[in-house]
């Protein structure tokens, strides 16, 4: 009986605390939702198979029509920057709680909620397209949830031979006869005994976007709508890509699932060239407070 009283008392205390923080005008943190909109220009992408009549068709700078049956990419290393320059990292060293796979076929994945972002006025967002090389080791022991999410049959974002994650996976069709295109990106960096990356390509890209409206985290939980314009894939700032079906790899770009010779052209187009401030295919549509 005494025990029961204790329980009731502590429950009451808990409720008191909980109600305190929800009624508190001086919230210390709130959520920020990132909403990813995958488009060709301003048109939302509708996926479809080879002969689909509903799929969104795009025409590249080189004049090639194309549409997609699959669009997936990894977003990680998210940081929000306050007006005063303070950078708030969001679980940037924890793929289980700070990374996600955006999958156009699964609407739930298009919104990613950042929990408990400290109160403040945010004017910039940074995130990674792909996984930073120091975390890109398919380490199931450290990050079992992200490993499972990325490796599921729905996403297939493990790149086994490179023991890393696929950063982007796009399947689709091009030209009027709907030949298959397949674009996978990922890093092939390999480290030596001293932990230095001594070979391979780094397909990770850091994206920096200024917010057109300040995102005010406080009693409000802002939503930042981000556009990923896949027109950039073939018609980017870095490269105008003509897809060819021959095995001649010197003939501009043959889409290939596993070869990094041509991969970096696509990577630069959608993620911007490495070590530049280019934001690739990404831009901010709106900030709603």
């Amino acid at each position, binding site marked *: 009986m005494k025990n029961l009283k204790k329980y009731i008392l502590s429950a009451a205390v808990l409720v008191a605390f909980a109600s305190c923080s929800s009624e508190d005008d001086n919230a210390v943190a709130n959520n920020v939702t990132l909403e990813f909109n995958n488009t060709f220009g301003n048109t939302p992408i509708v996926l479809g198979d080879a002969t689909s009549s509903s799929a969104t068709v795009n025409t590249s700078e080189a004049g090639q029509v194309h549409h997609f049956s699959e669009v997936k990419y990894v977003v990680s290393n998210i940081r929000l920057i306050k007006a005063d320059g303070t950078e708030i990292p969001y679980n940037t060293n924890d793929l289980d709680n700070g990374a996600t796979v955006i999958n156009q076929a699964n609407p739930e994945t298009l919104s990613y909620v950042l929990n408990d972002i400290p109160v403040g006025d945010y004017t910039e967002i940074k995130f990674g397209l792909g996984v930073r090389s120091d975390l890109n080791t*398919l380490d*199931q*022991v450290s990050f*079992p949830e992200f*490993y499972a999410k990325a*490796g599921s049959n729905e996403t297939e974002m*493990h790149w*086994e*031979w*490179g*023991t890393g994650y696929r950063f982007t996976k796009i399947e689709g069709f091009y030209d009027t006869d709907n030949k298959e295109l397949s674009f996978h990106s990922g890093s*092939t960096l*390999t*480290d*030596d*005994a*001293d932990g230095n990356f*001594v*070979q*391979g*390509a780094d397909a990770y890209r850091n994206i920096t976007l200024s917010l057109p409206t300040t995102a005010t985290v406080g009693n409000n939980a802002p939503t930042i709508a981000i556009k990923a314009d896949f027109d950039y894939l073939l018609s980017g700032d870095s490269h105008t890509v003509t897809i060819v079906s021959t*095995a001649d*790899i*010197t003939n501009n770009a043959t889409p*290939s*699932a*596993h*070869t*990094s*010779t041509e*991969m*970096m052209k696509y990577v630069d187009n959608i993620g911007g060239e490495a070590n530049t401030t280019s934001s690739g295919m990404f831009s901010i549509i709106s900030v709603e407070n």
Partner: protein
Amino acid sequence: MKNIASILAVIVLVTSCSNDDNYESTPFDNPEIDFNIPANFPLLNSSFYSNKPTTFGVELGEKLFTEKRFSINNTVSCSSCHVQTSAFADHNTLAVGVEGRIGFRNTPPIQNLAFMNFYNWDGSKLQLENQSLVPIITHEEMDSSILEVIGKIENDPDYEDLFEKAFGDEDVTADRIYNSIAQYEYTLISANSKYDRIQRNEGETYSAHEAEGALIFENKCASCHSTALFTDQSFRNIGFPINPNTEEAGRARVTGDIDDYLSFRVPTLRNIEHTAPYGSFGQFPTLRAVLDYLDNGVVDSDNLDPILKNNNNRIPLTEEEKSNLIAFMTTLSDVEFLGIND
């Protein structure tokens, strides 16, 4: 007598102490193994020094190497494809994994890897410790995951015993699995072929054909198949028949450099008699077929190796030279390493 009694008492005291000690400072007796480096071999891969083979590390690694629970349906172990009598390769053109799934390339032999700086046909790994995860997770190989493997073996008393002996406690961790397999692989050294014994002046001599072959080898092969490893570990496109699998880019798959397209690491020729078929996807059933191909002329390309390019895309060989070369290459067989009677 008194002395012995007091020593015994001290021992009992110490023992009971450490038993109570929750393993924290339990000393374990796991000496580094005597690692005899053949005199003419190149330097060890520097990863070796941070994962030196120990008695029980190697024993554990060998047990894991033959562990079929590494695969999703407990049917395939490392040793399913890496068969000792084939210098730890096999005789399939392409590797075969769970449910008969066909892999991407020909199974490479595992020998003298402690002295290699690049692993796999395309050099995609630089440390053995980072390699063993790849077959565990690859769909066409074992199609499992490291946590699945750990879950299957961690309560097995044999493993509890060996992990404790090797690492001081019975925890089965991913790194311990990777490290012990690498330790075992480091010990797979082939350096006792007839060729080696002749080099060491141990009284054996080449037959006339073998001696002829050795001379031809020196003239026409040794610029790539160099050092005591019989590979200079460079990556070269030598115009072998092209893999119809469009995923194949050779070394370029790793580097992204178009100049590396369809380049592969020069393979060792040790125990080559026992590792047929040959080529990255098993293009050639016999050594003779390889030599015939090089003699007839190879596929031209922009990045064809200059040695071939400057020689009309071929290595001219008479039929007699081919026979003698093959005779020489059989002197690179190490029956002790292969565990076979010649």
